[in-house]
Protein backbone atom coordinates (compact mmCIF):
# COMPACT_ATOMS: atom_id res chain seq x y z
CA UNK A 1 0.00 0.00 0.00
CA UNK A 2 2.93 2.31 0.42
CA UNK A 3 3.01 2.70 -3.36
CA UNK A 4 -0.21 4.73 -3.29
CA UNK A 5 0.47 8.43 -3.64
CA UNK A 6 -3.13 9.49 -3.21
CA UNK A 7 -6.04 7.60 -1.79
CA UNK A 8 -9.65 8.64 -2.04
CA UNK A 9 -12.04 6.88 0.33
CA UNK A 10 -15.84 7.14 0.44
CA UNK A 11 -15.69 10.58 -1.09
CA UNK A 12 -19.11 12.24 -1.29
CA UNK A 13 -20.14 15.75 -2.30
CA UNK A 14 -23.64 17.18 -2.16
CA UNK A 15 -24.74 20.52 -3.58
CA UNK A 16 -28.09 21.07 -1.88
CA UNK A 17 -30.25 18.19 -3.11
CA UNK A 18 -27.87 17.15 -5.85
CA UNK A 19 -25.47 14.31 -5.22
CA UNK A 20 -22.49 15.29 -7.37
CA UNK A 21 -20.09 12.58 -6.17
CA UNK A 22 -21.26 9.51 -4.32
CA UNK A 23 -19.07 7.20 -2.23
CA UNK A 24 -16.11 7.26 -4.58
CA UNK A 25 -13.04 5.13 -3.86
CA UNK A 26 -9.83 5.03 -5.85
CA UNK A 27 -6.11 5.37 -5.48
CA UNK A 28 -3.24 6.68 -7.58
CA UNK A 29 0.08 4.84 -7.72
CA UNK A 30 3.28 6.85 -7.91
CA UNK A 31 4.43 7.40 -11.47
CA UNK A 32 1.26 6.46 -13.32
CA UNK A 33 -1.15 8.38 -15.53
CA UNK A 34 -4.65 7.78 -14.28
CA UNK A 35 -7.55 8.87 -16.48
CA UNK A 36 -10.83 10.06 -15.01
CA UNK A 37 -13.52 9.82 -17.67
CA UNK A 38 -17.27 9.98 -17.91
CA UNK A 39 -20.03 11.88 -19.67
CA UNK A 40 -20.72 15.58 -18.99
CA UNK A 41 -21.93 16.22 -15.47
CA UNK A 42 -20.54 12.94 -14.14
CA UNK A 43 -18.70 14.78 -11.35
CA UNK A 44 -15.13 14.64 -12.68
CA UNK A 45 -14.34 18.29 -12.10
CA UNK A 46 -15.99 18.13 -8.68
CA UNK A 47 -13.57 15.33 -7.72
CA UNK A 48 -10.74 17.51 -8.99
CA UNK A 49 -11.88 20.49 -6.99
CA UNK A 50 -12.05 18.39 -3.85
CA UNK A 51 -8.54 16.98 -4.30
CA UNK A 52 -7.18 20.47 -5.00
CA UNK A 53 -8.95 21.89 -1.95
CA UNK A 54 -11.39 24.20 -3.71
CA UNK A 55 -14.38 22.28 -2.35
CA UNK A 56 -14.67 20.56 1.01
CA UNK A 57 -16.09 17.03 0.66
CA UNK A 58 -19.46 16.43 2.34
CA UNK A 59 -18.01 13.19 3.68
CA UNK A 60 -15.12 10.87 2.97
CA UNK A 61 -11.39 11.27 3.10
CA UNK A 62 -8.51 12.12 0.79
CA UNK A 63 -5.10 10.87 1.91
CA UNK A 64 -1.94 12.11 0.24
CA UNK A 65 1.39 10.55 1.23
CA UNK A 66 -0.13 9.42 4.50
CA UNK A 67 -1.62 12.83 5.35
CA UNK A 68 -5.32 13.63 5.34
CA UNK A 69 -5.63 16.70 3.14
CA UNK A 70 -9.36 17.15 2.52
CA UNK A 71 -9.64 20.02 5.02
CA UNK A 72 -6.59 21.93 3.80
CA UNK A 73 -6.68 25.21 1.88
CA UNK A 74 -5.86 25.19 -1.84
CA UNK A 75 -2.53 26.95 -1.36
CA UNK A 76 -1.48 24.50 1.38
CA UNK A 77 -2.31 21.52 -0.82
CA UNK A 78 -0.38 23.08 -3.69
CA UNK A 79 2.61 23.55 -1.38
CA UNK A 80 2.48 19.80 -0.70
CA UNK A 81 2.96 19.18 -4.42
CA UNK A 82 -0.55 18.71 -5.81
CA UNK A 83 -0.85 21.21 -8.65
CA UNK A 84 -3.89 21.53 -10.87
CA UNK A 85 -4.73 23.13 -14.19
CA UNK A 86 -8.15 24.47 -15.05
CA UNK A 87 -10.79 23.32 -17.52
CA UNK A 88 -11.38 26.87 -18.70
CA UNK A 89 -8.17 28.62 -19.67
CA UNK A 90 -6.95 30.42 -16.57
CA UNK A 91 -3.83 32.54 -17.00
CA UNK A 92 -2.42 35.85 -15.81
CA UNK A 93 -3.55 37.48 -19.05
CA UNK A 94 -1.80 40.84 -18.72
CA UNK A 95 1.59 39.32 -17.95
CA UNK A 96 4.17 37.94 -20.31
CA UNK A 97 4.65 34.21 -20.80
CA UNK A 98 7.82 34.33 -18.76
CA UNK A 99 6.20 36.24 -15.91
CA UNK A 100 3.36 33.70 -15.82
CA UNK A 101 5.87 30.91 -15.27
CA UNK A 102 7.81 32.95 -12.71
CA UNK A 103 4.64 33.25 -10.63
CA UNK A 104 4.19 29.50 -10.95
CA UNK A 105 7.67 28.98 -9.58
CA UNK A 106 7.29 31.37 -6.66
CA UNK A 107 7.18 28.51 -4.13
CA UNK A 108 10.88 28.00 -4.46
CA UNK A 109 11.54 31.75 -4.52
CA UNK A 110 11.32 32.46 -0.82
CA UNK A 111 10.68 36.13 -1.48
CA UNK A 112 11.66 38.56 1.24
CA UNK A 113 10.45 42.14 1.15
CA UNK A 114 13.81 43.64 2.00
CA UNK A 115 15.51 41.43 -0.57
CA UNK A 116 13.04 42.70 -3.15
CA UNK A 117 13.36 46.35 -2.30
CA UNK A 118 17.13 46.51 -2.00
CA UNK A 119 17.83 43.89 -4.65
CA UNK A 120 20.23 42.08 -2.34
CA UNK A 121 22.73 39.62 -3.74
CA UNK A 122 21.10 36.45 -2.28
CA UNK A 123 17.84 37.51 -3.94
CA UNK A 124 19.61 38.09 -7.24
CA UNK A 125 21.42 34.75 -7.23
CA UNK A 126 18.20 32.97 -6.31
CA UNK A 127 16.42 34.73 -9.15
CA UNK A 128 19.20 33.79 -11.54
CA UNK A 129 18.91 30.13 -10.63
CA UNK A 130 15.16 30.20 -11.09
CA UNK A 131 15.48 31.99 -14.43
CA UNK A 132 17.41 29.00 -15.72
CA UNK A 133 14.75 26.60 -14.50
CA UNK A 134 12.07 28.68 -16.17
CA UNK A 135 13.95 28.67 -19.45
CA UNK A 136 14.10 24.90 -19.41
CA UNK A 137 10.38 24.57 -18.65
CA UNK A 138 9.45 26.96 -21.46
CA UNK A 139 11.68 25.12 -23.90
CA UNK A 140 10.21 21.83 -22.76
CA UNK A 141 6.65 23.04 -23.40
CA UNK A 142 7.65 24.53 -26.76
CA UNK A 143 7.04 28.11 -25.67
CA UNK A 144 10.57 29.43 -25.94
CA UNK A 145 9.68 31.65 -28.92
CA UNK A 146 7.03 33.53 -26.96
CA UNK A 147 8.91 34.68 -23.82
CA UNK A 148 7.80 38.29 -23.88
CA UNK A 149 4.38 37.90 -25.41
CA UNK A 150 1.37 38.73 -23.25
CA UNK A 151 -0.44 35.55 -22.25
CA UNK A 152 -3.77 36.90 -23.50
CA UNK A 153 -2.34 37.30 -27.01
CA UNK A 154 -1.30 33.66 -27.42
CA UNK A 155 -3.30 31.22 -29.53
CA UNK A 156 -5.61 28.85 -27.71
CA UNK A 157 -3.29 25.86 -28.07
CA UNK A 158 -0.32 27.82 -26.71
CA UNK A 159 -2.41 29.15 -23.84
CA UNK A 160 -3.29 25.60 -22.82
CA UNK A 161 0.39 24.71 -22.93
CA UNK A 162 1.32 27.76 -20.90
CA UNK A 163 -1.18 26.62 -18.26
CA UNK A 164 0.70 23.33 -18.01
CA UNK A 165 4.02 25.18 -17.93
CA UNK A 166 2.83 27.24 -14.94
CA UNK A 167 1.82 24.04 -13.16
CA UNK A 168 5.21 22.45 -13.92
CA UNK A 169 7.03 25.50 -12.57
CA UNK A 170 5.29 24.90 -9.25
CA UNK A 171 7.17 21.56 -9.05
CA UNK A 172 4.26 19.14 -8.81
CA UNK A 173 4.51 15.63 -7.44
CA UNK A 174 0.94 14.93 -8.48
CA UNK A 175 -0.27 16.90 -11.50
CA UNK A 176 -4.01 17.27 -12.01
CA UNK A 177 -4.84 18.09 -15.63
CA UNK A 178 -8.44 19.16 -16.25
CA UNK A 179 -9.24 18.58 -19.93
CA UNK A 180 -5.87 19.75 -21.27
CA UNK A 181 -6.87 18.90 -24.84
CA UNK A 182 -10.10 20.89 -24.83
CA UNK A 183 -10.71 22.89 -27.99
CA UNK A 184 -7.45 21.84 -29.63
CA UNK A 185 -6.93 20.86 -33.24
CA UNK A 186 -5.41 17.56 -34.33
CA UNK A 187 -1.82 18.78 -34.45
CA UNK A 188 -2.07 20.55 -31.08
CA UNK A 189 -3.53 17.42 -29.49
CA UNK A 190 -0.62 15.37 -30.71
CA UNK A 191 1.94 17.84 -29.35
CA UNK A 192 0.20 18.07 -25.99
CA UNK A 193 0.09 14.28 -25.66
CA UNK A 194 3.82 14.14 -26.33
CA UNK A 195 4.33 16.71 -23.58
CA UNK A 196 2.22 14.75 -21.11
CA UNK A 197 4.11 11.55 -21.87
CA UNK A 198 7.40 13.39 -21.38
CA UNK A 199 6.20 14.79 -18.04
CA UNK A 200 5.39 11.27 -16.92
CA UNK A 201 8.87 10.14 -17.90
CA UNK A 202 10.27 12.76 -15.54
CA UNK A 203 8.70 10.72 -12.75
CA UNK A 204 5.62 12.82 -12.12
CA UNK A 205 2.24 11.28 -11.36
CA UNK A 206 -0.68 12.55 -13.40
CA UNK A 207 -4.42 12.50 -12.89
CA UNK A 208 -6.13 13.39 -16.14
CA UNK A 209 -9.72 14.37 -16.83
CA UNK A 210 -10.44 14.12 -20.54
CA UNK A 211 -13.23 13.70 -23.06
CA UNK A 212 -11.05 12.72 -25.98
CA UNK A 213 -11.24 8.90 -25.70
CA UNK A 214 -8.62 8.25 -28.32
CA UNK A 215 -6.15 10.36 -26.41
CA UNK A 216 -7.02 8.72 -23.11
CA UNK A 217 -6.58 5.26 -24.59
CA UNK A 218 -3.19 6.19 -25.97
CA UNK A 219 -1.60 7.59 -22.78
CA UNK A 220 -3.38 6.19 -19.72
CA UNK A 221 -2.52 2.82 -18.23
CA UNK A 222 -5.64 2.87 -16.12
CA UNK A 223 -8.94 4.74 -16.22
CA UNK A 224 -11.81 5.28 -13.85
CA UNK A 225 -15.26 5.78 -15.35
CA UNK A 226 -17.71 8.02 -13.52
CA UNK A 227 -21.40 8.37 -14.21
CA UNK A 228 -23.79 10.44 -12.07
CA UNK A 229 -21.09 10.73 -9.42
CA UNK A 230 -20.51 7.01 -9.05
CA UNK A 231 -17.68 4.83 -10.23
CA UNK A 232 -19.02 2.36 -12.76
CA UNK A 233 -15.79 0.75 -13.87
CA UNK A 234 -12.03 0.81 -13.40
CA UNK A 235 -9.21 -0.80 -15.33
CA UNK A 236 -7.24 -0.58 -18.55
CA UNK A 237 -8.86 1.64 -21.22
CA UNK A 238 -9.31 -1.33 -23.57
CA UNK A 239 -11.06 -3.41 -20.92
CA UNK A 240 -13.27 -0.57 -19.74
CA UNK A 241 -14.54 0.22 -23.22
CA UNK A 242 -15.89 -3.34 -23.50
CA UNK A 243 -18.09 -2.90 -20.44
CA UNK A 244 -21.75 -2.54 -21.51
CA UNK A 245 -22.44 -0.16 -18.58
CA UNK A 246 -19.72 2.20 -19.82
CA UNK A 247 -21.02 2.06 -23.39
CA UNK A 248 -24.50 2.79 -22.11
CA UNK A 249 -23.30 5.77 -20.08
CA UNK A 250 -21.59 7.24 -23.11
CA UNK A 251 -24.16 6.40 -25.79
CA UNK A 252 -27.32 6.56 -23.69
CA UNK A 253 -29.56 3.77 -22.42
CA UNK A 254 -32.09 1.86 -24.48
CA UNK A 255 -35.23 2.95 -22.70
Amino acid at each position, binding site marked *: MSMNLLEVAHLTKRFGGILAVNDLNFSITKGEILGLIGPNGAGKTTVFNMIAGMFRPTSGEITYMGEKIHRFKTSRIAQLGIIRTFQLTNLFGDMTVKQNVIVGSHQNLGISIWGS*IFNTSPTRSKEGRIDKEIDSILTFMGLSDYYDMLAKNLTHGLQRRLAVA*IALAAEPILLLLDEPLQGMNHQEVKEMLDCITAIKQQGKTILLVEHNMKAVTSICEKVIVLNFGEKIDEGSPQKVMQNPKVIEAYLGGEE
Partner: protein
Amino acid sequence: MIKKPKIIDIVYWAIFIGLFFLPLFTKESYIFHIFCLIGINIIFACSLNTILNIGELNLAQTTFMGIGAYISALIVMRLALPFWIAMPIAMMVSATISLAIGFLTLRFKGAYFLLFTFLFAELVRVLLSNFWIGLFGGVPGLTNIPRPSMSIPGLFSIKFSSNIEFYYLIMILVLVTIFVMRRIDMSRLGLLFKAISQSESLAESTGLSAMKFKILGCAIGCGFAGLAGSLYAHFVGIITPHDFSIHAVLAPVAYVVVGGMGSVYGPVLGTTFLMALSHFYLRQFGLYELLIYGVIIIMIIRFMPEGLISIPRNVSHWYGRLSKKE
Protein backbone atom coordinates in the same frame (compact mmCIF):
# COMPACT_ATOMS: atom_id res chain seq x y z
CA MET B 1 21.72 41.67 -14.52
CA ILE B 2 21.91 45.42 -15.14
CA LYS B 3 18.69 46.88 -16.43
CA LYS B 4 18.77 49.72 -18.92
CA PRO B 5 17.27 52.88 -17.41
CA LYS B 6 13.91 53.64 -18.96
CA ILE B 7 13.06 57.02 -20.47
CA ILE B 8 10.40 57.53 -17.83
CA ASP B 9 13.04 57.22 -15.08
CA ILE B 10 15.21 59.83 -16.77
CA VAL B 11 12.29 62.23 -17.14
CA TYR B 12 11.41 61.64 -13.51
CA TRP B 13 14.91 62.47 -12.28
CA ALA B 14 15.06 65.56 -14.50
CA ILE B 15 11.81 66.83 -12.98
CA PHE B 16 13.07 66.19 -9.47
CA ILE B 17 16.31 68.03 -10.06
CA GLY B 18 14.31 70.88 -11.57
CA LEU B 19 12.05 71.01 -8.52
CA PHE B 20 15.09 70.99 -6.24
CA PHE B 21 16.17 74.35 -7.62
CA LEU B 22 12.68 75.83 -7.67
CA PRO B 23 13.31 78.10 -4.64
CA LEU B 24 15.89 79.98 -6.72
CA PHE B 25 13.13 81.29 -8.96
CA THR B 26 10.32 82.03 -6.59
CA LYS B 27 9.93 82.58 -2.88
CA GLU B 28 6.14 82.76 -2.93
CA SER B 29 4.98 80.92 0.20
CA TYR B 30 1.64 79.91 -1.34
CA ILE B 31 3.32 78.01 -4.17
CA PHE B 32 5.35 75.99 -1.70
CA HIS B 33 2.30 75.41 0.42
CA ILE B 34 0.57 73.83 -2.58
CA PHE B 35 3.67 71.85 -3.55
CA CYS B 36 3.87 70.43 -0.04
CA LEU B 37 0.23 69.38 -0.20
CA ILE B 38 0.83 67.81 -3.61
CA GLY B 39 3.77 65.88 -2.16
CA ILE B 40 1.72 64.58 0.75
CA ASN B 41 -1.02 63.56 -1.64
CA ILE B 42 1.49 61.82 -3.92
CA ILE B 43 2.62 59.68 -0.99
CA PHE B 44 -1.01 58.96 -0.19
CA ALA B 45 -1.94 58.17 -3.81
CA CYS B 46 1.01 55.76 -4.01
CA SER B 47 -0.21 54.01 -0.88
CA LEU B 48 -3.71 53.75 -2.33
CA ASN B 49 -2.24 52.37 -5.55
CA THR B 50 -0.53 49.54 -3.67
CA ILE B 51 -3.88 48.31 -2.48
CA LEU B 52 -5.54 48.82 -5.87
CA ASN B 53 -2.72 46.65 -7.24
CA ILE B 54 -3.88 43.66 -5.24
CA GLY B 55 -7.33 44.16 -6.71
CA GLU B 56 -9.23 45.87 -3.90
CA LEU B 57 -10.27 49.43 -3.11
CA ASN B 58 -9.78 50.35 0.52
CA LEU B 59 -12.26 53.06 1.50
CA ALA B 60 -10.59 53.30 4.91
CA GLN B 61 -7.28 54.36 3.41
CA THR B 62 -7.71 57.93 4.70
CA THR B 63 -8.50 56.45 8.09
CA PHE B 64 -5.01 54.97 8.16
CA MET B 65 -3.69 58.37 7.16
CA GLY B 66 -5.68 59.75 10.09
CA ILE B 67 -4.27 57.13 12.45
CA GLY B 68 -0.79 58.15 11.36
CA ALA B 69 -1.61 61.83 11.81
CA TYR B 70 -3.09 61.45 15.30
CA ILE B 71 -0.39 59.07 16.53
CA SER B 72 2.36 61.30 15.26
CA ALA B 73 0.80 64.49 16.64
CA LEU B 74 0.07 62.93 20.02
CA ILE B 75 3.56 61.51 20.40
CA VAL B 76 5.10 64.89 19.67
CA MET B 77 2.64 66.92 21.79
CA ARG B 78 2.04 64.62 24.76
CA LEU B 79 5.26 62.67 25.03
CA ALA B 80 7.43 65.56 23.81
CA LEU B 81 9.38 63.21 21.55
CA PRO B 82 10.84 64.57 18.30
CA PHE B 83 9.03 64.23 14.98
CA TRP B 84 11.78 61.93 13.69
CA ILE B 85 10.75 59.28 16.19
CA ALA B 86 7.03 59.98 15.91
CA MET B 87 6.92 59.59 12.13
CA PRO B 88 8.25 56.01 11.94
CA ILE B 89 6.10 55.02 14.90
CA ALA B 90 3.06 56.48 13.11
CA MET B 91 3.92 54.42 10.02
CA MET B 92 4.35 51.26 12.06
CA VAL B 93 1.14 51.74 14.02
CA SER B 94 -0.84 52.31 10.80
CA ALA B 95 0.68 49.22 9.22
CA THR B 96 0.10 47.10 12.31
CA ILE B 97 -3.53 48.13 12.65
CA SER B 98 -4.01 47.40 8.94
CA LEU B 99 -2.60 43.91 9.49
CA ALA B 100 -5.38 43.20 11.96
CA ILE B 101 -8.04 44.86 9.83
CA GLY B 102 -6.74 43.13 6.71
CA PHE B 103 -6.85 39.77 8.44
CA LEU B 104 -10.51 40.36 9.26
CA THR B 105 -11.69 42.01 6.05
CA LEU B 106 -9.54 40.77 3.16
CA ARG B 107 -11.31 37.43 3.09
CA PHE B 108 -14.20 39.41 1.65
CA LYS B 109 -14.02 40.58 -1.92
CA GLY B 110 -15.38 43.44 -3.99
CA ALA B 111 -18.44 45.15 -2.57
CA TYR B 112 -18.21 43.32 0.75
CA PHE B 113 -14.66 44.50 1.30
CA LEU B 114 -15.74 48.04 0.42
CA LEU B 115 -18.54 47.89 2.99
CA PHE B 116 -16.28 46.62 5.74
CA THR B 117 -13.65 49.26 5.11
CA PHE B 118 -16.42 51.87 5.00
CA LEU B 119 -17.64 50.70 8.40
CA PHE B 120 -14.12 50.80 9.82
CA ALA B 121 -13.63 54.34 8.53
CA GLU B 122 -16.85 55.50 10.16
CA LEU B 123 -16.03 53.66 13.38
CA VAL B 124 -12.71 55.43 13.72
CA ARG B 125 -14.25 58.80 12.86
CA VAL B 126 -16.92 58.39 15.56
CA LEU B 127 -14.32 57.19 18.07
CA LEU B 128 -12.10 60.20 17.42
CA SER B 129 -15.02 62.65 17.53
CA ASN B 130 -16.84 61.43 20.62
CA PHE B 131 -14.57 59.44 22.88
CA TRP B 132 -11.54 60.36 25.01
CA ILE B 133 -12.03 63.98 24.09
CA GLY B 134 -9.26 64.97 26.47
CA LEU B 135 -6.82 62.97 24.37
CA PHE B 136 -8.13 63.23 20.81
CA GLY B 137 -9.71 66.67 21.09
CA GLY B 138 -13.17 65.62 19.88
CA VAL B 139 -14.71 67.13 16.75
CA PRO B 140 -12.43 70.22 16.68
CA GLY B 141 -9.47 67.85 16.71
CA LEU B 142 -5.91 68.76 17.62
CA THR B 143 -4.43 72.18 17.04
CA ASN B 144 -1.01 73.79 17.33
CA ILE B 145 0.84 70.71 16.21
CA PRO B 146 4.45 71.84 16.01
CA ARG B 147 6.54 71.70 12.87
CA PRO B 148 9.50 69.33 13.08
CA SER B 149 12.99 70.62 13.72
CA MET B 150 16.39 69.09 13.48
CA SER B 151 19.58 70.19 15.14
CA ILE B 152 22.96 68.74 15.83
CA PRO B 153 24.55 70.98 18.49
CA GLY B 154 27.44 72.96 17.13
CA LEU B 155 26.88 71.84 13.54
CA PHE B 156 23.54 72.98 12.27
CA SER B 157 19.92 73.40 13.18
CA ILE B 158 16.91 73.50 10.89
CA LYS B 159 13.43 74.39 11.99
CA PHE B 160 11.06 73.37 9.23
CA SER B 161 8.91 76.38 10.00
CA SER B 162 8.86 77.94 6.54
CA ASN B 163 7.13 76.27 3.65
CA ILE B 164 10.34 76.19 1.63
CA GLU B 165 12.13 74.15 4.29
CA PHE B 166 9.19 71.82 4.64
CA TYR B 167 9.11 71.52 0.86
CA TYR B 168 12.57 69.91 0.90
CA LEU B 169 11.59 67.52 3.69
CA ILE B 170 8.54 66.39 1.74
CA MET B 171 10.51 66.12 -1.48
CA ILE B 172 12.95 63.70 0.14
CA LEU B 173 10.15 61.58 1.54
CA VAL B 174 8.32 61.54 -1.80
CA LEU B 175 11.58 60.35 -3.38
CA VAL B 176 11.89 57.57 -0.81
CA THR B 177 8.26 56.55 -1.31
CA ILE B 178 8.55 56.40 -5.09
CA PHE B 179 11.84 54.51 -4.78
CA VAL B 180 10.29 51.85 -2.55
CA MET B 181 7.15 51.57 -4.70
CA ARG B 182 9.22 51.25 -7.85
CA ARG B 183 11.42 48.56 -6.31
CA ILE B 184 8.38 46.58 -5.21
CA ASP B 185 6.79 47.02 -8.62
CA MET B 186 9.85 45.71 -10.45
CA SER B 187 10.55 42.88 -8.03
CA ARG B 188 9.05 39.42 -7.88
CA LEU B 189 6.94 40.59 -4.97
CA GLY B 190 5.20 43.11 -7.22
CA LEU B 191 4.70 40.40 -9.80
CA LEU B 192 2.93 38.22 -7.25
CA PHE B 193 0.66 41.13 -6.27
CA LYS B 194 -0.30 41.55 -9.92
CA ALA B 195 -0.83 37.81 -10.31
CA ILE B 196 -3.27 37.75 -7.40
CA SER B 197 -5.29 40.62 -8.81
CA GLN B 198 -5.47 38.95 -12.23
CA SER B 199 -6.41 35.42 -11.21
CA GLU B 200 -6.63 34.56 -7.55
CA SER B 201 -7.72 30.97 -8.27
CA LEU B 202 -4.68 30.25 -10.43
CA ALA B 203 -2.35 31.93 -7.95
CA GLU B 204 -3.78 29.81 -5.14
CA SER B 205 -3.48 26.64 -7.16
CA THR B 206 0.26 27.16 -7.58
CA GLY B 207 0.63 27.37 -3.83
CA LEU B 208 0.46 31.11 -3.32
CA SER B 209 -1.41 32.08 -0.20
CA ALA B 210 -3.38 34.98 -1.68
CA MET B 211 -4.58 36.07 1.74
CA LYS B 212 -1.04 36.42 3.10
CA PHE B 213 0.13 38.53 0.18
CA LYS B 214 -2.98 40.68 0.20
CA ILE B 215 -2.46 41.43 3.90
CA LEU B 216 1.17 42.23 3.20
CA GLY B 217 0.26 44.58 0.33
CA CYS B 218 -2.35 46.23 2.49
CA ALA B 219 0.15 46.75 5.31
CA ILE B 220 2.75 48.30 3.00
CA GLY B 221 0.10 50.64 1.59
CA CYS B 222 -1.26 51.60 4.99
CA GLY B 223 2.24 52.22 6.35
CA PHE B 224 2.77 54.85 3.68
CA ALA B 225 -0.70 56.26 4.35
CA GLY B 226 0.50 56.70 7.93
CA LEU B 227 3.55 58.55 6.66
CA ALA B 228 1.34 60.88 4.62
CA GLY B 229 -0.81 61.45 7.69
CA SER B 230 2.13 62.25 9.90
CA LEU B 231 3.46 64.77 7.40
CA TYR B 232 0.02 66.30 6.97
CA ALA B 233 -0.44 66.76 10.71
CA HIS B 234 2.86 68.55 11.17
CA PHE B 235 2.56 70.56 7.98
CA VAL B 236 -0.96 71.91 8.44
CA GLY B 237 -0.80 72.01 12.23
CA ILE B 238 -4.50 71.24 12.72
CA ILE B 239 -6.17 67.87 12.33
CA THR B 240 -9.83 67.00 12.83
CA PRO B 241 -11.63 63.67 12.49
CA HIS B 242 -13.44 65.09 9.48
CA ASP B 243 -10.16 65.46 7.55
CA PHE B 244 -9.85 61.69 7.42
CA SER B 245 -13.48 60.72 6.91
CA ILE B 246 -14.76 58.62 4.06
CA HIS B 247 -15.17 61.68 1.78
CA ALA B 248 -11.46 62.37 1.87
CA VAL B 249 -10.61 59.14 0.05
CA LEU B 250 -12.57 60.06 -3.06
CA ALA B 251 -10.26 62.76 -4.42
CA PRO B 252 -7.16 60.53 -4.17
CA VAL B 253 -9.04 57.74 -5.95
CA ALA B 254 -9.62 60.23 -8.78
CA TYR B 255 -5.88 61.10 -8.76
CA VAL B 256 -4.93 57.44 -9.13
CA VAL B 257 -7.49 56.70 -11.84
CA VAL B 258 -6.72 59.85 -13.84
CA GLY B 259 -2.98 59.22 -13.62
CA GLY B 260 -3.23 55.54 -14.42
CA MET B 261 -3.78 52.64 -12.07
CA GLY B 262 -1.18 49.97 -11.63
CA SER B 263 1.98 51.80 -12.62
CA VAL B 264 4.03 53.68 -10.04
CA TYR B 265 4.26 56.98 -11.90
CA GLY B 266 0.56 57.04 -12.81
CA PRO B 267 -0.65 58.16 -9.38
CA VAL B 268 2.25 60.63 -9.11
CA LEU B 269 1.32 62.20 -12.43
CA GLY B 270 -2.41 62.18 -11.69
CA THR B 271 -1.98 63.81 -8.28
CA THR B 272 0.34 66.50 -9.61
CA PHE B 273 -1.84 67.26 -12.61
CA LEU B 274 -5.20 67.43 -10.86
CA MET B 275 -3.97 69.28 -7.75
CA ALA B 276 -1.93 71.79 -9.71
CA LEU B 277 -4.89 72.30 -12.04
CA SER B 278 -7.35 73.00 -9.26
CA HIS B 279 -5.06 75.14 -7.08
CA PHE B 280 -3.20 77.20 -9.67
CA TYR B 281 -5.62 77.47 -12.56
CA LEU B 282 -9.24 76.68 -11.77
CA ARG B 283 -9.38 79.02 -8.73
CA GLN B 284 -10.26 81.94 -11.03
CA PHE B 285 -13.56 80.36 -12.06
CA GLY B 286 -15.03 80.73 -8.59
CA LEU B 287 -18.34 78.92 -8.36
CA TYR B 288 -17.70 76.97 -11.55
CA GLU B 289 -14.40 75.56 -10.29
CA LEU B 290 -15.66 72.14 -9.19
CA LEU B 291 -17.92 71.84 -12.22
CA ILE B 292 -15.02 72.29 -14.65
CA TYR B 293 -12.83 70.05 -12.52
CA GLY B 294 -15.42 67.27 -12.68
CA VAL B 295 -15.87 67.58 -16.43
CA ILE B 296 -12.09 67.35 -16.95
CA ILE B 297 -11.91 64.17 -14.84
CA ILE B 298 -14.80 62.60 -16.74
CA MET B 299 -13.23 63.49 -20.10
CA ILE B 300 -9.89 61.95 -19.11
CA ILE B 301 -11.51 58.75 -17.88
CA ARG B 302 -13.67 58.56 -21.02
CA PHE B 303 -10.93 59.15 -23.57
CA MET B 304 -7.90 57.81 -21.69
CA PRO B 305 -9.14 54.87 -19.64
CA GLU B 306 -5.56 53.89 -18.87
CA GLY B 307 -4.84 57.33 -17.51
CA LEU B 308 -2.44 60.18 -18.29
CA ILE B 309 0.49 57.79 -18.08
CA SER B 310 -0.64 56.23 -21.36
CA ILE B 311 -0.28 59.48 -23.35
CA PRO B 312 3.27 58.85 -24.68
CA ARG B 313 2.29 55.35 -25.78
CA ASN B 314 -0.90 56.56 -27.43
CA VAL B 315 0.87 59.41 -29.19
CA SER B 316 3.46 57.07 -30.69
CA HIS B 317 0.62 54.75 -31.67
CA TRP B 318 -1.26 57.54 -33.49
CA TYR B 319 1.93 58.77 -35.03
CA GLY B 320 2.67 55.28 -36.33
CA ARG B 321 -0.78 55.03 -37.85
CA LEU B 322 -0.56 58.45 -39.48
CA SER B 323 2.81 57.77 -41.07
CA LYS B 324 1.56 54.42 -42.36
CA LYS B 325 -1.33 56.10 -44.19
CA GLU B 326 0.97 58.35 -46.16
